[in-house]
């Protein structure tokens, strides 16, 4: 009876700290994004006014302007989606079997291979981008999906394998051994046993790789010029090509945020498991 009020008091204090902390954090994180959202409904003049206008006549033409009247937008959006999906597909299809073998078997070169995979995480984009640019130029495929996908795979396959290795290691070895004793071949054990069990991991890695591709700026910046240009490169050229219309730029930014926000909302579980696996495994 004497302890009770103490606990509720402490709980009350915690609740207060929690809410103050949360509100601060949310303000800092959300503030800039909300500001962008508000300004995406302003004219350029309103967006630049001092003091900033919180009450204004909302303008709905920024979004259609960015999407329809900008001849590059839909094409570049399509390019981003295509290169992102294909690169992620390649990473998962090639990465899954490799990750399984590296996680489960010891053989000549397995240590070296694991090391190479880890070491490629250190390689700066410039060190891969510049020679890839020269190679693509020499074989005449600059500004194609092929060039972009090759660079995306280069940047994501080693990391993807490494993440998937972590997910494979979480599966008890006894399961495959039992399957093999029951007469399944190794390939059957892999396809029917491991792959379904690693499926959440595959989804997590797939989502992470897709986000990395969506965010990628440097590689498509140097490897593309027009046909295969991605949405991030369009973002980079936004100011020089169109002058600075901050209202339109805000609308454009919000549109590029949307897919990522959707992933954060609908696939949060996978996203967190991918992010923490990536960090904790190091």
């Amino acid at each position, binding site marked *: 009876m004497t302890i009770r009020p103490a606990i509720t008091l402490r709980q009350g204090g915690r609740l207060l700290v929690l809410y103050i902390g949360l509100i601060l954090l949310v303000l800092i994180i959300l503030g800039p994004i909300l500001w962008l959202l508000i300004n995406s409904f302003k004219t350029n003049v309103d967006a630049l006014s001092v003091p900033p206008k919180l009450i204004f006549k909302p303008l709905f033409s920024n979004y259609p302007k960015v999407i329809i009247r900008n001849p590059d937008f839909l094409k570049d959006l399509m390019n981003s989606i295509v290169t992102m999906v294909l690169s992620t597909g390649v990473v998962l299809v090639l990465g899954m079997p490799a990750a399984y073998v590296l996680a489960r078997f*010891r053989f000549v070169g397995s240590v070296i*291979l694991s090391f190479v995979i880890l070491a490629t995480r250190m390689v700066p*984009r410039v060190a891969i981008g510049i020679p890839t640019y020269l190679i693509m130029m020499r074989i005449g495929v600059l500004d194609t999906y092929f060039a972009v996908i090759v660079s995306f795979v280069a940047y994501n396959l080693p990391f993807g394998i490494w993440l998937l290795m972590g997910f494979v290691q979480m599966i008890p070895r006894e399961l495959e051994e039992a399957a093999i004793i029951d007469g399944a071949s190794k390939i059957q054990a892999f396809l029917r046993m491991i792959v379904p069990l690693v499926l959440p991991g595959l989804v997590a890695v797939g989502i992470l790789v897709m986000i990395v591709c969506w965010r990628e700026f440097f590689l498509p910046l140097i490897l593309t010029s027009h046909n295969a240009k991605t949405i991030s490169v369009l973002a980079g050229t936004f100011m020089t090509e169109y002058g600075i219309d901050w209202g339109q730029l805000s609308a454009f930014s919000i549109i*590029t945020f949307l897919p990522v926000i959707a992933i*954060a909302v609908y696939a949060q579980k996978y996203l967190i498991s991918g992010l923490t696996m990536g*960090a*904790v495994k190091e």
Partner: protein
Amino acid sequence: MSARTASKAGSDGWFITALLAPAAITIFLVVLVPLGYALRDSLYRINISMLYQGEKFLGLGNYVQALKDPDFYNSLVVTTVITVLGVAVELVLGLMLALLLNRPLESVHFRGKRVFRTLVILPVILPPVVVGLMWRFIFQYSGVINFLLISMGLHSVDWTTQYTGVITIITTVVWQNVPFSFLLILAGLQSVPPDLIESSMVDGASGRQRLFHIYLPLIKPIIFLILTIRTMDAFRTFDEAFILTGGGPGRSTETVSLFIYRNSFSFFDVGYGSALSILLLLLLMVITVFYMRLIYAGRGAK
């Protein structure tokens, strides 16, 4: 297990090869071959605007040029400032937030937990180029930051000068990456056994003592982990500098990656750019080894 798998290695050979070969060959072709090319190209003078002139072998000429290039040193200093300040602020803020919210988040159940997690993750996964645009808007001369300064009775600041430009870049980088530190440290704090905290409370340890004698030692590996990952990333900063200041005014906010990009694609000196990127790679390797030694030295002492 190694003995068992080793004895079966012969019969596993075809299986391992079949599953590994596609990925191994791909990594060889898209990562190692380009790296080999970079190494080779770094020994040549290659101008991509005048390819008809052909390539000229320079030996280590490009490397010598780099070591004599004041602009290269300048970019190293800029990058180091951004990395050290940025990562330090990220870590401190991440730690503070995690400590502040750890106990309440565990002991209090509230409805918005999921929403909160979603919000916290958001900055980490947004495209850096667009985040750069967003902060450029906020930091522009008639933007929100200056408005806040004026309403506090201060003056407007030009956020794109030699010194303020670096602050702009660091702010953007920090905003985007604090959640990463926060989430990892929070995960670390939540793995601290509750008994340990309870018994320290019974023993009458102060909050400060708990921080320095229980929490910090236990999450040290995670702090080092964040330090390593974030140093690697921050040292390669390109997108934010490209968007926010373009390296200017002059070269005062030019990061190493931006410097290499300019030499390769604005001045078309790809040989020099290749040499510089090899140097950057070596530097990153040195930093990694340094961190690894710190981590293992810490473990050995225990």
